[in-house]
């Protein structure tokens, strides 16, 4: 479904810093992939490139055999909103918006009418068990609840791909476990998920794990 061909990412600082070096990766529909590696190894950059937030310096990226690495900002933004759902380590909820409004946000940028946004947000929130907290603002939520809200936001657009960047990194192990269980459940429902994690325990339970070291990919 998503295919990375010879992806390289370099930054023009101090004589060129190579973050990703000739990375090739194929992810199929409904896969649950873990990416592990030490910090600074290029995991996040790879995730950002897969999520169309960042552009590779060279190489090809395609979604369902459609090359996307050469699109302009406008097309990329639209595609990003439709294809990808992000879950961040630090949740990234908009503080002034309610839980429901936060979940509606990606639909807003797709031009979905208000009422439909409400309904779809309610469904996504039900799926992560946050229906009761719909009207709260993020500051009234616990860490686990915030991450559930963020996952609902990632689900609401029915994306082809959910990208989670250390979703348990800011949570205690019990809440983290709940989040992992939630992702597990979503995977069980057929969703494609790519997760970066530091946690060997979590990684050991994933069906497929790739390691990144110094920008190079090795599959285990």
């Amino acid at each position, binding site marked *: 479904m998503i295919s990375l061909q010879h992806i390289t990412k370099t930054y023009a600082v101090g004589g060129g810093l190579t973050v990703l070096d000739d990375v090739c990766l194929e992810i199929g529909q409904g896969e649950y992939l873990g990416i592990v590696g030490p910090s600074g190894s290029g995991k996040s950059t790879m995730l950002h490139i897969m*999520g169309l937030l960042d552009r590779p310096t060279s190489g090809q990226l395609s979604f369902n055999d459609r090359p996307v690495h050469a699109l302009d*900002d406008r097309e990329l933004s*639209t595609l990003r909103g439709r294809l990808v759902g992000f879950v*961040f380590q630090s949740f*990234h909820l908009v503080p002034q918006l309610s839980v429901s409004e936060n979940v509606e946000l990606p639909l*807003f*940028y797709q*031009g979905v009418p208000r009422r439909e946004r409400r309904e779809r947000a309610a469904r996504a929130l039900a799926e992560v068990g946050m229906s009761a907290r719909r009207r709260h603002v993020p500051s009234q939520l616990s860490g686990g609840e915030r991450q559930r809200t963020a996952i609902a936001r990632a689900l609401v657009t029915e994306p082809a791909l959910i990208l989670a960047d250390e979703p348990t990194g800011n949570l205690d192990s019990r809440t983290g476990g709940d989040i992992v269980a939630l992702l597990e459940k979503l995977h069980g429902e057929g969703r494609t998920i790519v997760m970066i994690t530091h946690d060997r325990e979590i990684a050991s339970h994933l069906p497929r794990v790739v390691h990144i070291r110094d920008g190079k990919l090795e599959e285990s």
Partner: protein
Amino acid sequence: MDILWPVELVSDGLRNLWRHKLRTVLTMLGVLCGVAAVITMLAIGEGAQRTVLREISALGLQNIILNSVQPPSTSVESSSGGHRASLFRYGLTEKDVALIRGACPTARVSVAHQVKDKVHARGERVDARVLGVDPGYFGLFSTRVVRGRLLTPLDDSRRHQVVLVTQGLDADLRRSGVVDDGFIRIGWQHFKVVGVVDLAVPDGDRIIFMPYHVARARYGTTTVQREAGSIEFTRTDVGQVVVQVADENEVPGTARVIQRILDTHHRVYDVTMSVPLDLLRSKQRTQRILSLVLVSIAAISLLVGGIGIMNIMLAIVTERIPEIGLRRALGARRRDILVQFLIETVTLSTVGGALGCLVGTAAVPIASHWLEWQGVVTAQSILLSLVVSWIVGVVFGLAPAARAARMDPVTALRHE
């Protein structure tokens, strides 16, 4: 869809502003003061303009008014001891009137005879100018009868001993006890006051009007003044001439013709010519400059307000960098971010502007009270202020919004 629902962005913007009330109020204050100043200044300018217009229009914009005045060089010379008798002749003459009539055949020319005798009311000296006028004289000015009646052709032909007084003089006469239908003495003749009028003529508001032929018959053209040891005769044939042309456009040309006649026949400065239209034009010019200066000052404060907004918006953008990154990750295009911040700035400046309109309008009566003329808030000035504050929002919001939109999403997301 190309444009997102601005209504939701506005309500979003309002919510953001509401969350930081103090900051919002302080930021708005700049635009608020600027707009309030613009409104008040425009109102004062407009009020002044209307006052001047009304005062001058009352003189009749089709009129050219000539008055005989004593030339500066004819002050009474007194030599010690010996008797002196002298005759001074000054002012407009019948010949001038004939020449003016000849030069302006289409104009209405009305002549007033000036009586120089002293005026007394109940034995007290009254300082007033006495004019003998024909009944048509009042039609040349916007005259309002305050009490009683005007002079009639019958008064003129029957030589009725009646006078009208101007409003300003009336107040003084009442203070001295001359009430309606009272009598005043001019020289040695007694006149009945039959009416009080309010009319604007160039030389003040202390005038007594009597029928033209009464003035000619009773007082003649020569006055005698006795000072210690000397007798002075002064003669003025015609006290005042009012020329009324049919159309305002004829005023400048007619004024030039009359000026030429006066220049030819008067060596000394013994006739004044006032042209209300010229007066109006020059007053309007000064007024416009005044308004421009006032509004410029107000505009500067508006500019300062705009810079204040820009400053705060830059800070707000910096504060919300992670949010910008997130919105980009969720599918927002650069333009969506630009519009979002622009709407927030415009909301800020427009609400500030609207409040400024209220404050400015409220300040007008206070300013009017101090300035002793009525400020006028026009719909145009309100509209102008709102449009300007909107523009201030767009102009000063563009830089912060563009900065937010240009941000790299990955860097923005990582920003702490």
